[in-house]
């Protein structure tokens, strides 16, 4: 495309179908404790 460059896989919808396994860390257990930041947590689902 000339005007638009898509830079990622945009796979959020696909992630919902296979998601919710609950293996990932609770976000406040990493380094927040006073804010909620979920998007920077790692997915821990085994492939």
């Amino acid at each position, binding site marked *: 495309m000339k005007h638009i460059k898509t830079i990622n896989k945009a796979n959020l*919808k696909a992630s*919902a179908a296979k*998601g*919710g396994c609950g293996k990932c*860390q*609770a976000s*406040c257990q990493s380094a927040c404790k*006073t804010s909620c930041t979920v998007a920077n947590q*790692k997915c821990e689902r085994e492939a």
Partner: protein
Amino acid sequence: MIHKFKLAGLNIVLDVNSGGVHLIDDLTYDLLDNVEPPFDEKCPANVIDKLSKTYPADEIEECFQEIRELYADGIMFSEDDYEKYALTSVAAPIKSMCLHVSHDCNLRCEYCFASTGDFGGGRMLMDLETGKRAIDFLLKMSANRKLLELDFFGGEPLMNFEVVKQIVAYAREEEKKYDKQIRFTITTNGMLLTEDKMDFINREMSNVVLSIDGRKEVNDRMRKRVDGSGSYDRIVENFKKFVPMRGDKDYYVRGTYTKYNLDFSEDVIHLFEQGFDQISVEPVMADPSMPYAITDGDLPKIFREYEILSEKIAKIRSEGKFINFFHFMLDLDQGPCAIKRLKGCGCGNEYIAVSPDGDIYPCHQFVGIEQFKMGNVCDGSFNYDIKADFAKAHVYTKPECVKCWAKFYCSGGCNANNYLYAGDIHNSYKLACEIQKKRLECAIMMKAVQMMDTAE
């Protein structure tokens, strides 16, 4: 829903529901203000008329067709079809615990949300029996979850370190019976770190959070000892010794910025220059009447400061060095799934806090607030209604979140902040939201630049 913004010379558009991130030219940026689904086959004549003062008509049509194509591919103006997951997938076993082994602290940090360590309930240490009951509770309530998390928290947990060690020993025996694994972490101010403690923590704890605010004068203004003197000299020495001993295990140095250091990028860089490369520095959450509290008027300066920080981090990385800033971490391809994103932090549902006397609360920030007391690990009481209420506090039950572009990144914000500063866990604390959104824009921009560089 889309969100577009200009940053660091780039035009970026985020397609909220697919997670798609696109770099766009000025024409697309302006055209997106004028078109939205359902799309006609051709760009509407009035839009071409309006924009043709700035752009050639054939280019506008060409750009319109690119937007249509991405819409057809489901990565621009994609539909929000997640609510069905919110209705069915949010309740979960309890698998994370914040264990308050000490409601006492050897510092008197001015901004402490725990009333300088005791959470308003008097200074107290957890005894071993209560700690054991907390482990039993976690193992039992985690149902089919195999990987559990327990953070030793305070007050200052190192003030009760013998009990920490014995709780870990007990948990290591008990987890085998359940065929589970508990990941331990600890959050400490570092004042009491000794080589023995460092060795134990390195052996047993997968992550440590080391509290330090940055520059000496910034740290010592807020993080004071009981006698009023600063803590910087002691903790920086201890952390410098401790971090290299961690090897490849995780750690964060974690600071708080206030109205007194809105130039907090200096503090992040100061921490980096001390040899720390895993850094989190967050805004203070405080009653607006406090002199150090961040207020709406500070936002322009804070927004600019995050931009400056992103430039400084980019420069460090361009020199081939490693630095990670917690709030700029983002994986645009392999991040958490949409279900995790709509559930949020999981407090009161997957995550709980336990006070020294065994009382259970939705998270560490709710500790001591009577109406949120969920039960007690010693007498076995547990209020499932409160758990259900928190399970339902997801992005689709928070009115401001439903219409917000950032909802799949902050996941509804901090329920405790919402309650404390906006009156209800379902209300958004707008000051925190604004800061969060700016951090996200910076994070998306930095990731976009990195992905472009990699592609080239």
